């Protein structure tokens, strides 16, 4: 439980990740405390090299912390066995990457059903789930397309559908709009917004201020540590029209 009394999906205490040793020691993540509430959309922002991607890898069990504790839905995972961690990554965490990481030789629907098949679901159930997810992300008519036949925005939406295949506790996204133009970014933001409304917990590391501005909470990271936290509550000082130079 965190301060507000709701359940934390992700809970980190004193999380640290070091590379190299002695003079060459780099603290990529340097003592991070973090609680992500169920259903929350959290954005972590910072310049490249600030440690935000390393942090996301730690949260997702893709990498092990050098020190600190990490809990996912109440379960301590920083000391979990490799096998247990692999199962956790497959069943409880959805990953979204900047470069999509779709399998080039598989169609959109085959990519999306893959995590469910790996989790041991029947081909029929996995396919049904994948088709439903592609519909949810607006790609029902692209199910049989190879990634190479999809636009950047469509590929990322397929990748997000894949991340949802096993109903993850949390979706972790690393620069999900980094390779997208303005219009495709808007598609992905709309999709994140609909996931948020459906109660999905999302942690997004990014330097795209559009994502940061639409998250529930924004954390700024510098040199491996959190330096600022913002909740964008309250209205703006002006109305929308004033932003476009229209007088009221």
């Amino acid at each position, binding site marked *: 439980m965190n301060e507000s009394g709701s359940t934390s999906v992700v809970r980190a205490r004193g999380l640290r990740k070091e590379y190299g040793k002695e003079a060459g020691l780099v603290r990529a993540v340097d003592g991070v405390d973090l609680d992500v509430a169920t259903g929350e959309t959290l954005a972590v922002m910072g310049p490249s090299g600030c440690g935000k991607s390393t942090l996301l890898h730690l949260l997702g069990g893709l990498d092990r912390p050098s020190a600190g504790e990490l809990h996912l839905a109440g379960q301590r995972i920083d000391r979990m066995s490799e096998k247990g961690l692999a199962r956790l990554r497959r069943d409880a965490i959805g990953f979204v990457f900047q470069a999509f990481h779709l399998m080039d030789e598989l169609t959109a629907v085959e990519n999306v059903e893959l995590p469910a098949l790996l989790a041991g679901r029947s081909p029929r159930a996995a396919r049904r789930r994948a088709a439903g997810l592609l519909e949810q992300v607006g790609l029902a008519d692209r199910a049989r397309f190879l990634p190479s036949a999809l636009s950047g925005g469509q590929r990322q939406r397929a990748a997000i559908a894949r991340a949802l295949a096993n109903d993850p506790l949390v979706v972790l996204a690393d620069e999900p709009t980094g390779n997208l133009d303005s219009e495709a970014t808007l598609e992905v933001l709309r999709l994140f917004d609909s996931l948020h409304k459906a109660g999905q917990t999302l942690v997004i590391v990014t330097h795209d*201020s559009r994502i940061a*501005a*639409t998250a529930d909470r924004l954390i700024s990271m510098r040199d491996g540590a959190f330096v600022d936290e913002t909740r*964008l509550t309250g209205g*703006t000082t002006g109305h*929308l*029209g004033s*932003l*476009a130079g*229209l007088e009221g």
Partner: protein
Amino acid sequence: MQQEVVLALLAKEPSHGYQLRARLRQALGPLGDTMNDGQVYVTLTRLEKAGLVASEQAAGVADRPDRKVYELTAAGQQRVAGWLTEVSWPKPDLAEFHLKLIAAAAAGLADPLAIVDAQRRELLRRLRDAQRAAMAEPARSAAGLLLEGIVLRLQADLRWLEACERTWTRRKDES
């Protein structure tokens, strides 16, 4: 409402004031929400006095601006043509903020980084409002394009604030 905008909207064909309003609403979407309906008529009246538009009253109705059909005069057409080819762009007022940081630091009155933080929060709030409005627009709407412009500008301002933060952090560390 800028006079030239109303004039240019009239260039398509002689129109009632409410038709111009509808065209403005379509172009601006949610950004036009705070627009006062009376503004178009006030502007049309001014333009008529200036000889840039002429109006015709439908027969047998009272003298009311909302019953009139307005059209451009030759002078009005010339003004529109001039306005369309004129290169103008709003000036971003960055110097004021820049000097605020310098003055605050020099006088020791406030921490420039705190000023940058406050400014960033305000810009993020604006970005959130513009981004939400953009997400609510149907694809390829005219208002969506305007909102995209607002979003891109705010992003540019936020990037400049990052540069301000870097520089002032360095100066603080050095002092």
